[in-house]
């Protein structure tokens, strides 16, 4: 049970004072073990079912053998090399698609987050509900709906055809012929759609905190609306941009649902390969190695990105 101090007791001399910690509570003498009891079950769960599997996966990736004879750890690092040299196109594609989807999410999501934060007035709550509500319909059903929307004979494709957009995207290699389904464009469109709320919500949270008087002040100092946005609003919304970007990019890079449902064999992403290797080919070492590389690559990219963007407190 979390209990409270009657009066702040003097801090025990053994523990060093933490000057800048946000917690105001000084440590208690009684119930010193309480935090550990509170943490124990949950952390145990995470250690056993999140951290330990990572170790098992790392060990599986350096095993050799077969399903029939069983696997043994032989430190066969060549699996990594083979996996990378065979599947680098899928890796590259995952990064490209996820980047494209993230940029699109930012471009599409920012106006909506801005609208909810500053311009929606009494419609704010309703729009908020409409942004979150699709979450409650299975995302697989909603992704399948894109098959209908982008169907070859549907209105979207025939419109894009009439205005010759498809000629341009065809030339760019994003679509092929008169089709949108089973092309990179369809997969990126699906990824963007699926992860858009993950961009909008953090953007909204950081926009909503901005004091509207700052906009007025910028205007009073003869800043045009564009300058106000560039110099005041956007920099202040950076925490939202950073966490939104991460929340979109990470799941998009590992996704295989959109590539499978809306794409073709030419749009397979690394998630598809891991899924096939694990569940159909049953080549566990290769699958584990691929998954390990994906994890390492994403952790590396995220760390670099956070360093550059300079937002440390994401949790």
């Amino acid at each position: 049970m979390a209990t409270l101090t009657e009066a702040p007791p003097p801090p025990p001399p053994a523990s060093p004072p933490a000057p800048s910690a946000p917690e105001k509570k000084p440590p208690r003498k009684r119930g010193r073990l309480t935090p550990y009891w509170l943490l124990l079950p949950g952390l145990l769960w995470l250690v056993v079912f999140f951290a330990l599997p990572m170790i098992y996966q790392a060990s599986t990736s350096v095993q050799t053998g077969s399903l029939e004879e069983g696997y043994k750890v032989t430190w066969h690092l060549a699996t990594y090399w083979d996996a990378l040299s065979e599947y680098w196109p899928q890796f590259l594609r995952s990064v490209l698609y996820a980047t494209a989807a993230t940029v699109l999410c930012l471009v599409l999501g920012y106006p909506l987050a801005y609208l909810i934060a500053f311009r929606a007035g009494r419609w704010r709550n309703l729009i908020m509900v409409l942004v979150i509500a699709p979450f409650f319909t299975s995302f697989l059903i909603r992704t399948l709906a894109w098959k209908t929307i982008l169907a070859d004979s549907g209105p979207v494709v025939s419109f894009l055809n009439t205005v010759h957009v498809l000629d341009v995207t065809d030339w760019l290699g994003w679509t092929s012929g008169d089709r949108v389904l089973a092309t990179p464009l369809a997969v990126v469109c699906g990824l963007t759609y699926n992860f858009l709320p993950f961009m909008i919500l953090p953007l909204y949270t950081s926009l909503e905190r901005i004091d509207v008087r700052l906009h007025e002040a910028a205007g009073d100092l003869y800043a045009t609306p564009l300058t106000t946005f560039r110099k005041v609003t956007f920099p202040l919304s950076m925490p939202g941009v950073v966490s939104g970007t991460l929340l979109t990019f990470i799941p998009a890079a590992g996704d295989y649902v959109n590539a499978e449902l809306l794409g073709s064999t030419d749009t397979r992403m690394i998630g598809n390969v891991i899924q096939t290797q694990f569940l159909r080919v049953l080549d566990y070492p290769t699958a584990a190695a691929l998954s390990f590389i994906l994890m390492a690559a994403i952790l590396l990219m995220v760390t670099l990105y956070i360093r550059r963007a300079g937002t440390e407190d994401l949790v």
Partner: protein
Amino acid sequence: MPVVNWLKRHLVVIAGLLTLGYLLLPNVVVTVFSFNKPKGRFNYEWQQFSTDAWKDPCGVAGMCDSLSISLQIAIWATIGATLLGTMIAFALVRYRFRARGSVNSLIFLPMAMPEVVMAASLLTLFLNLGAQLGFWTILIAHIMFCLSFVVVAVKARVLSMDPRLEQAAQDLYAGPAQTFLRVTLPIAAPGIAAGAMLAFALSFDDFIITNFNAGSTVTFPMFVWGSAQRGTPVQINVIGTAMFLIAVLLVLTSMVIGNRRNRQKA
């Protein structure tokens, strides 16, 4: 140029509403196609209006069973993750202890990891232990990935709590247990509820981690995935539409109640 000026002034609103349309378009399609009468096995092209699927929502073999399995897993995963996550959140906000940094990263990492990596590694664990894949392995996995989200939701609420309220309770001779039950818990309740709702939604809708660790157990998302290969029954759209409507209704009702309560207070 009044038109240009109007456009300029409302550019953000127009762009925002277009994005909102993009977000809602698939739901509109799902709803409309729940009234379709498809010719072949797939429900991707409009044929003619019919309410057959709505009259017989469980008419597809296995679908309602998968729905019930998903509900059971989501309920238990919500209970488990909310309980464990709330305890962690209280420990993080209220106490100082060693290894705080490692605890924080252990909670943050599952949210920063692509689902497919967690799914694959968990499967290697279960394979190595020789565990029977099914209901229990799905439940274990769901509690694992929902936990962190509950911690974040509850932590935010507990952090914003005024500690003086609890001190006041204790000044009025409430014991620790009484203070917790009558003061702390009610104030933290909205955060706990938000965490629980999030956990339920995440668990109910999870596909990737479930796909790896389900064995032959079929949850509702697994059923939809399978039907994308075999043929999509209209009933899937009925369930999708119904879930959307229930969610919107629930949220709107709670908003109306909340508004009324606020007005009474004011």
